Structures are given as C-alpha cells and as structure tokens.
C-alpha cells in the first residue's frame, strides 16, 4: 500500500462528484485537486479557492495599452514631426481615440491571456500532467493525496458511497508522461 501516491475517485456525473467532495470534507480528508472535462460552477467555493484576480491584471494591461498608444501618437504627431494639414491642430485628440482604443484591447487581451498561461503553467510543449486520461472526456475525478490521508479504505468507502464508478490508485502522480 505504501507505493500509492494518489487515490482517484472517478465519477460519471458532476453532481455525484460534488457530493463526493462534501463527503470527504465532512470526514476531514483533504482533497488534492479535482479534474473535470468541463467547468463546474460552485466548486471553487467548496474547495476554498479564492476568486481569480485576473480581472485586475486585465485592467492594468488595458490601461497600459491606452497610455502607450497615446504616448506613441503624441510623440509622433505632436512632438517629433508636426504635419501641417490645412493649418489644423496637430494635437487632434478625437483622431487619436480609435488607435488608443485598439491598443487598449490588444494589450489587455494579450497581457491577460499570457498571465493566465503563466499562472496555470500552460505553454506549448508542456508535458501534460494528467492523473486520469478520462478526466478530459467523460469522468469527473477527485484526487486525494494518499500519503497525507492514511485511512485508504475509508476514502474508498466514502467515494463509492457518493457514487464513484471507479477508484484508482496511482503509484505515479501523473500517468501521462510515457
């Protein structure tokens, strides 16, 4: 038994999986992570995951874009080389707005998505860290750290009771490296 690293409860239904999380938590068994093929609403509250702060990052990136666009246009059209267009003012703010808006969106989108990739460790070629291959297909998987939670049979029982279709013991943390 000592080789087991993770105990996986594989559920066929998201509601049963949520039930499984409750059961484990009632028995003070800590959950390592949950892998699902689709987003499950309300799960982050159960697992005590804080609200994402990515919106703050998005705002900061966006406002950076606005400022960069304004600075660029102001430098080019007002400071560095004023073009006399029928004697009209060089500092024509309304004309600057379309590009300021576009660069706001561009910086916001790229900044936010790259932050997201960085914070969740997503990048091209990263070895997928998958515990159960069906967790991206039709199974909702609860992973419990076997070393931290000694009573394996209790965990099995709780997961089965909640409706787990399958209980797996992973001797390696991730099975997707081979």
């Amino acid at each position, binding site marked *: 038994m000592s080789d087991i690293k993770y105990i996986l409860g594989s559920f*066929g239904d*998201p*509601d049963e999986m949520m039930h499984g999380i409750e059961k484990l938590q009632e028995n003070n068994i800590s959950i390592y*992570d949950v*892998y*699902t*093929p*689709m*987003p*499950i*609403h*309300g*799960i*982050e509250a159960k*697992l005590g*995951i804080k609200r*994402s702060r*990515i*919106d703050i990052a*998005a705002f900061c990136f966006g406002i950076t874009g606005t400022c960069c666009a304004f600075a660029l*246009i102001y430098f080019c*059209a007002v400071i*560095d*080389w004023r*073009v006399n*267009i029928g004697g009209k003012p060089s500092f*024509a703010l309304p*004309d*600057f707005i*379309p*590009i300021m*808006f*576009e*660069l706001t*969106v*561009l910086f*916001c*989108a*790229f900044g*936010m*998505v790259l932050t*997201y*990739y960085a914070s*969740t460790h*997503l*990048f*091209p*070629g*990263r*070895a*997928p*860290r*998958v515990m159960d*291959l*069906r*967790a*991206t*297909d*039709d199974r909702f998987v609860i992973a419990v750290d076997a070393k931290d939670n000694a009573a394996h049979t209790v965990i099995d029982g709780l997961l089965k009771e909640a409706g787990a279709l399958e209980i797996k013991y992973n001797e390696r943390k991730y099975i*997707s490296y081979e």
Partner: protein
Amino acid sequence: MSGHNESILREPLITGDNITYAKITDDILMPVENKPNKAWWIGFIVSALGALLWVVAVSYTFWNGIGAWGLNKTVGWAWDITGFVWWVGIGHAGTLISAVLLLFRQNWRNSINRSAEAMTIFAVICAATYVVSHMGRPWLAYWVLPLPNQFGSLWVNFNSPLVWDMFAISTYFSVSLLFWYTGLLPDIATIRDRAVGTRRKIYSIFSFGWSGSVKTWQRFEAVSLILAGISTPLVLSVHTIVSMDFATSVIPGWHTTIFPPYFVAGAIFSGFAMVLTLLLVARKVLGLENYITMFHIESMNKIIILTGSIVGVAYLTEFFIAWYSGSEYEQYAFINRSTGPYWWSYWMMMTCNVISPQLLWFKKIRLSIKATWILSIVVNVGMWFERFVIIVTSLHRDYIPSSWAMFYPTWVDISVFVGSIGLFFTLFLLFLRVLPSIAIAEVKLLLKTASEQAKMKQIKEGHENKEYVAEYIESLEKFDSVKQEDYAKI
C-alpha cells in the same frame, strides 16, 4: 450548474436520447479521429484548386502591379476593397456569437461558437490579403506601421482612417485568434488523451499541457468572460473604422454619418448568413443534428431578419438624407446609384438584402433547411453587391463628366475573388479535420440542464405545469432530430 432545472418553456439545445458525456465527445470528434470520407475529399479538392487560383492571381498581381486589375484613374478602388469589406464583415459573426452572445448568456451559442470563430479567422485572413495586395508594392506593406525610418523620421498619418484600420484589423485578428485558441485548449486536451503515438505527441504540444484542474477552469472562465467583454466593443469598433475609410472622405455617397452602425449591422447580417451556409452542410455531413438543432437555425434566421431590416432602413435613410440635404451632388450620387449605369447592381443589392430576407418571417421558410441555405447564399451575394455599389457607383462619375468611366474586372480581379473563396473553404475544411468543430466542453455544460433528455425527465417527474409541457412539446415539432412518437404517449 445542475442544482436547478431550466424552465420547460425553453427549447432543448441538445436533442436525442442516450446522450452522455462520452457520446458528446465521440460524436464531435468523429471527423477528427477518422479518415475523411469522399464528400470531404471532393470539397477539399475543389477548394484547394480555388486556393491555387488565388495564389496564381495574387502572385500575378504582386509581379505586375495592380495594373493587372481593371482599375482606372476614376475608379481607383473596386473589387479589392469590395472583397476586403465583404470578408471582414463575414468574420464579424464569429466574434458576435462567441462574445456578444456570451455576455447575454445565450446558451445556444455553445454549439456554434467554435466553427463561427474559425470562420472569423479565415475570413480575416482573406480580407488581409486584399489589403496587402491592393497596396501595389506589398513589400513596402510595413510602411503602414509607425516605425522609425530614414525619412525624418516621418511617421504615419495618425489622422488617417487607413492607419486606424491597420491597427483595428490587426488587433481584431490577433485577439480573435487568442480567444479561439484559448477556448480550444481543453478540447485539444480531449483529443490528446484519446490519441496514441505521434498524434498524441502533436496534440500534446498544442494542448499546452492542459489538465482540467479546478483552478485552470476557474481562471479559464474568468478569462473567457473578460475576453468576451473586450471583444464586444472591439468587433463594433472594427467595422466602424472600416466604414470610416469611406465616411471620413468627402466623396458624395461615402461622406455619411450613418455608415458605422449601418456597416456593423451589415457585417452581422452577412456573417450569420455565412455561418448558416457552412453549418447547414457541416451539420448534415458530420452528423451533428443533435447539437446544431433547428432551434439554432431558427435563432440565426431571426438575427438575419433583424439585421437585414436594419440594413434596409439604413438604405432608405441614406436616400432620404440625400434628398433632404439639398446638396445636388449628394442627390445625384444616389439617383445615379439606383437609375444610372449600375442600376442592376443597386437593385441586386436591394433584392438580396432587403426583400428576400423578409421571407424568413414565414415560419415554414425559416424552418426549411433548403430555403435557409439558399437564402444564406443570396444574402452574401447581396452583401457583396452592397459594397460594390457603395464603392464603385460613388466613384465612377466623379467631378468632371469627361473623366466619367466604368469599371470592368479583368481575369485577375475575378480570380483573386473566386480564389479567396477557395482559400476560405480550404482552411475551413482543414479545420474540420484537425480540430473539434463544436466546443466539446461547452456543450457538455448544457447536457444536464438544457438537453431534450433532461427536459423529458422533468416532464416525467410530473411537477411541471401541464400547459407549459404542452407548449414545450408543440415547440419540438420543428426539430428534425426529435422523435415525435416519444411525446405522443405523454
């Protein structure tokens, strides 16, 4: 997500019984995981030949310059900018479906957003090639960027809508690509975990190591929502700026303040028509009737009636304002449009965009796949003529009658346009083979609440209002993928 049931009054978004999470994956990945059939090959070969024609025609233009096109000194913009605006407009439906409908919580978008976004990207590629090739010296295309140079530095003219357009189109393309690809990650991971060997390795690289853990999903949803929030004004701004290419000029017929909303409505109109053209065929060939249902088709048709009518009102308003302005040049531009030498293109536009979409008010036509498909093509023909009318008829009779001219396309003009359609379909057909054409994870979200079987269960439990149930069953009559006899018993 599934703590409560959805109202029985809402039509189901997934039909069929015995739909499970596994079946959704199997059904959607069928074209990706199997060898293509004959229909695909025929379509692909025809489109690839078109794409080849495009390569030839664009190369010919690059080599010989835009003298290869039928332009003259009066008509300096014709099929090129017509094609550009047409393709950008088509692209807009993808963003509208993925972003605007997400903000409005329209769940029916979940099964059409992926292919519509793919369509956006391919359409913008087609549009962008027009921009580059109409420059005449495409190897100097980087001159539109504000780069330091040895002429001063002489910067680009930031007061010019053409420079705004460069920023708008490139932002639009890259943000759409980002939105689309981020949404694809979980689905690529699904393919990866089902594949073996080299296939797994390839999909593994492109899946960015997606695992589907709680935090990844939580942030994924936050990112999607914010991207939708910024893409919504983006898509409106892009076509607004495209329309400003005309509206900020002083050419009678172009110099109108109605252009931005009128162009945006037209873009959505033609984009939805193109989505229907593609999806009605894809649905049948790929056997996706349970996911892209008659409800989806009807909803898109309703958007087409709405935006088509907005476009119609815009045409009439333009005419009225031309008369009301009291400016004889403005008045002449519009009289010339409808009765001058290009009267046929004006009336083609009026018929295809304003009159024929009104047929969709009839339920029978709206729910007929054949009629919808034909109308969707008619709409896009009409939208092409709209741009042609705006561009060419406003230019061809300019300030001095001695310089009045007509525009006649050369074989290169025609080949670039026909070829760009080939390029578009080639890319779309390749997309169907290598990536899931429906967002798998998003459709799975609907299974427990908005599917026919979930609603069937609700009815069988017997707590629903009888009148509502009757109304619901009546609404199922239009579905071609629902077995009516199952409901006869209830």
